């Protein structure tokens, strides 16, 4: 690697040629503040917070996009630089609705942090007219409050990166605002509800629709039996909301917190993940053996499903008919469990804790009401759960570790890795291979489909059959694969698609991390590693070996793919237009 010699704040150092000043400064242990910068996907130099002085330059220089070259002398903290950043912050504040006291992002707002760091005392310094702001709460999963938007366009880049691109800048100059084409409501365009815009927003302009009040009302209603279940990835991300290290597994504390919040039963979505595997493996084998539509594509990720319905409405037959684990869980609770416990499903409230905003949309889908009531009543994001815990005054870090309730608190190692891209594929392989060969697997690790790459491919010979698989995450990659599926060149048997890049660990409902973390820390990788660690330590690592799974089939579903299973655990899809 070619290196160049530069000086940052008079400290000489040698850094790779061509990297940005922003990255070079990190070699010197200096973090240059940014607002708009997202590495690789939003390098647009728009916010002007990262300005630095460069010796000999005509004016201040944009650190996030300006490459270093030999002999460059950079100053990151001069009076000129500090004044510039302060004035830019004052300008941004002058168009920002400052109800910071009660803002959902108070404390995690990047603008707020910078204003504090740069000692912006006079919030009214450049006070003037405010643009006419839009407020869009049309979508099932989120709220856009442009009065807090600072036009960094990180959401636009995230949406573009997802190949959805339903938001962008409209109008110009002072009236510029982010919205959909022709200022249509988000509900009327092909937004897939993934929430990647939200986790990339530096302020409170984008947020999930808060359903915590509904949950509290249900808990406080003595006639309701409130069941909560937590998706695989929540246990390795919830801790971040309480200042714990990225990748800390807090399963025990999470269960304890949920119990203290007053839920009647605390279950694990992992149970339903195992159920999904059993049903999906069966569906795959049936398709392979009976000449069904291949490749079959997973259906766990509601953002992906919605994407497919909007963008590939002609390819819906490739989707597995299995409901997602969240919906399978709710369906099982309101049928088998209600029956077994003698409960009226009308009085059961199922709450899912999900890494995902599209899950809020999913609960409202048609053909998701096995018992005649919605399978799942409320889907909360990890962030909403964190807020509930905080507001209940529970000191999370000091909680004891507790166990899930039984019988639906049992999950296998195969289920827990659902939270990472490739996890569903690996879990399915563990079951499908054994079913097809009738022999016990020697090694359970299918490492070819692990890791945070957007598209991973592998080929296995199982009982004389060649099975080619792909695990895909992020809709840009899904687009690549789906184009092949559409034109008939995708020779895969089975494809796993996760909507969010890296899978659920990086879902749109996960705790927000500042851009600096997203840019320079392997967030997806570290969260996923904790899931694989959990898998390794679990006594049962294959879905079909779960005692809970065996029990529900024995008592209720009969065999995988049975009539009852189809009634309760499978669903259908509908083509959706790109805009209304």
């Amino acid at each position, binding site marked *: 690697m070619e290196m160049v010699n530069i000086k940052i704040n008079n400290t000489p150092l040698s850094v790779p040629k061509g990297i940005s000043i922003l990255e070079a400064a990190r070699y010197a242990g200096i973090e240059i503040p940014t607002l708009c910068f997202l590495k690789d996907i939003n*390098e*647009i*130099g*728009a*916010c*002007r917070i990262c*300005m630095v002085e460069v010796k000999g330059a005509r*004016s*201040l220089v*944009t650190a996030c*996009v*300006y*490459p270093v070259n030999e002999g460059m002398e950079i100053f990151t903290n001069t009076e000129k630089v500090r004044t*510039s950043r302060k*004035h*830019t912050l004052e*300008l*941004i504040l*002058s*168009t920002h609705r400052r109800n910071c006291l009660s803002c959902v992002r108070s404390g995690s707002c990047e603008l707020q942090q910078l204003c504090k760091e740069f000692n912006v005392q006079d919030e009214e310094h*450049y006070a*003037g*007219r405010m643009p006419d702001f839009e407020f869009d709460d049309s979508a099932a999963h989120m709220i856009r409050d442009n009065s807090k938007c*600072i*036009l960094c366009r990180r959401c636009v880049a995230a949406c573009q990166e997802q190949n959805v691109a339903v938001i*962008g*800048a409209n*109008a*110009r*100059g*002072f*009236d*510029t605002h982010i919205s959909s084409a022709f200022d249509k409501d988000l509900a009327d365009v092909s937004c897939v509800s993934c929430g990647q815009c939200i986790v990339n927003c530096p302020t409170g302009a984008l947020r999930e629709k808060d359903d915590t009040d509904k949950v509290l009302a249900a808990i406080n209603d003595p006639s309701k039996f409130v069941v909560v279940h937590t998706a695989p990835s929540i246990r390795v991300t919830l801790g971040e909301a309480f200042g714990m290290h990225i990748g800390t597994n807090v399963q025990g504390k999470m269960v304890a917190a949920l119990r203290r919040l007053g839920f009647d039963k605390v279950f694990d979505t992992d149970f339903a993940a195992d159920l999904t595997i059993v049903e999906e493996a069966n569906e795959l084998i049936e398709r392979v053996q009976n000449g069904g539509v291949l490749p079959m594509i997973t259906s766990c990720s509601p953002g992906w499903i919605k994407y497919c319905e909007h963008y590939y409405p002609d390819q819906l037959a490739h989707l597995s008919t299995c409901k997602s684990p969240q919906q399978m869980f709710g369906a099982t609770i309101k049928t088998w469990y209600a029956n077994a416990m003698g409960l009226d499903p009308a009085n059961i409230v199922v709450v899912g804790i999900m890494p995902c905003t599209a899950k809020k949309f999913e609960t409202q889908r048609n053909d998701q009401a096995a018992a005649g009531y919605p399978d799942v009543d409320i889907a909360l994001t990890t962030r909403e759960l964190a807020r509930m815990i905080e507001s209940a005054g529970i000191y999370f870090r000091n909680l004891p570790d507790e166990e899930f309730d039984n019988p639906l608190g049992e999950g296998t190692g195969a289920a827990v890795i659902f939270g990472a891209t490739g996890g569903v594929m690996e879990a399915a392989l563990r079951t499908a291979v054994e079913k097809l060969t009738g022999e016990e697997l020697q090694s359970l690790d299918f490492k070819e489909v692990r890791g945070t790459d957007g598209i991973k491919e592998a080929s296995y010979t199982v009982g004389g059959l060649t099975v080619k698989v792909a695990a895909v995450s992020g809709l840009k990659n899904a687009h690549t694969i789906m184009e092949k599926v559409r034109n008939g060149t995708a020779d895969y048997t089975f494809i796993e698609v996760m909507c969010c890049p890296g899978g659920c660990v990086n879902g749109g409902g996960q705790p927000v991390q500042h851009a600096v973390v997203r840019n320079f820390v392997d967030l997806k990788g570290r969260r996923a590693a904790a899931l694989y660690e959990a898998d390794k330590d679990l006594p049962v690592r294959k879905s079909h070996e779960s005692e809970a799974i065996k029990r529900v089939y024995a008592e209720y579903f009969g065999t995988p793919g049975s009539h009852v299973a189809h009634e309760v655990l499978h669903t259908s899809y509908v083509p959706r237009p790109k805009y209304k």
Partner: protein
Amino acid sequence: MNSLAQLKEIKDRTVDKIVLPEGSDNIRVVVGLATCGIAAGARPVFDALVQGVSNAGLDEKVTVAQTGCIGVCQYEPVVEVLQAGKERVTYVKMTAEKAAEVIEKHLKGGKVIEEYTIGYYTRADENAEIKYSLMDTPFCKTQKRVALRNCGVIDPESIDDYIAMDGYAAIGKVLTQMKPEDVIQCVKDSGLRGRGGGGFSTGLKWSFTAANKADQKYVVCNADEGDPGAFMDRSVLEGDPHAIVEAMTICGYATGATEGYIYVRAEYPIAVKRLGIAIEQAKEYGLLGKNIFGSGFDFDLHIRLGAGAFVCGEETALMTSIEGNRGEPRPRPPYPAVKGLFGKPTTENNVETFANIPQIILNGADWFASMGTEKSKGTKVFALGGKINNTGLVEIPMGTTLGEIINEIGGGIPNGKKFKAAQTGGPSGGCIPASLSDTEIDYDNLTAIGCMMGSGGLIVMDEDTCMVDIAKFFLNFTVDESCGKCSPCRIGTMRMKEILEKITDGKGTLEDIDKLEELASHVKANSLCGLGQTAPNPVLATLRFFRDEYIAHVVDKKCPAGVCKALLNYSIDPEKCKGCTLCARNCPVGAISGTVKEPHTIDRSICIKCGVCMQNCKFDAITRA
């Protein structure tokens, strides 16, 4: 066509039509049919001439041709009659009826109609001799036409006309006698600098693109002229479009590009049409396309229309727009020479820059470098407007002083008013106060006084202009035109405008002036692109040269030029008022009361400060302060 001989053949057979040879008794009549002429009514004049000449049986002897902008806006429509060995006759303010008269008396009868000629309007007094030709007016005397040399001379829709005036000889020379590096060296040596406003060395720019290896490179012509009051590029495109086609081809050869794009405003329909015709004609002649002049060099051109955003004149925004995206600038580096249009090395120059290229190739770098000042070579085209007698399009050698432009070429300020300042560079530039009239116009001198050359708009202001109001005017423009991408420009320009409004509303304080200055410096230093970096210039320049006017607004609550309505009050001097009631009867809001033959009074709570009373008063009894 694939040889220089064929080119010469066309030239030889056409040239006599345009430059009438000695001894010929043919007559050439040209009508300025650029946008300005057509808007002033030149089309019926042209039609009347064509029809009239035909009806009079003069077809053999008289050619009537359309041509581009002749340059004298306020005299449009303009018709020129050219005859070998005779003085050119410039008829101005023409109508179809006058044209019929010209056919009868001049073309048939050989007698010039003096009172229709330009000299009739421009003579010093009634007894002065009437010069017939535009060339003899002070407006033209110090002009030097390089970029505009064919404007007003040839029919822009005829490739043969262009070839007759040595058109495509430069690309012929380049492709048959010069290596790409020779072309770049020649352009470098000429000292030509970018005429779009930045003033970067054109040859150097070309060499950067040439140095980058790529499977595809592009040439882009920036014809997105957006400054209010500027129409230099439009005039070139409408008057001499082939010059741009030829120059871009030369640039393509020099830099290794095989494709070019002309990005032109959709608001210039005639320019778009004539460019389209030029490209088609050049393709037909084999002067665009494959293997030009048998050299093996291929070059193709496309037109892209801009939707009228000022920011698309910024080179990266322009390229983003050509690519089909929202016209917004992108950070530099990477510079277009490295990563430009569609991510490929690209050379972008504006229309006027390109218009100089064929002449530099044909006449040599030394010829071009002999004009102008030490660091600014050649000529510059200005669109002269505002409070000036001769509005129009002028091309002058670099180094001409502002005073010469205004007093000689421009004929001074109308109505005996005093010259106060001139704005160069439009909303991105600054004002040059009258005290600096001796400034020789070139890139570096203008930069030194905090202005900029800009693309060539030159707006003249007289003593009745309020400089705070002017700054507000330009800020209004940039607020409208900011693309909204970067925070300092998007918000900062609006805040500056708001402060200026506060000041002109009489609500400003001295602190506001400080804040305005702070903000202007901030926006200048921190904005992403040229638009934001220069948007504060009108504020900074007026603060520098006319600070006293700002102070008068905030401290004395007065607008010295009497422009800012909120700071004006009309009152009636009871000593002078005769009670004629004229003011009261004309007041649109009924603010004036009084009985006949008694002094009247104005109710300030009703008065809207329109000034009608003052205009109507016959006794000078109404004052504005």
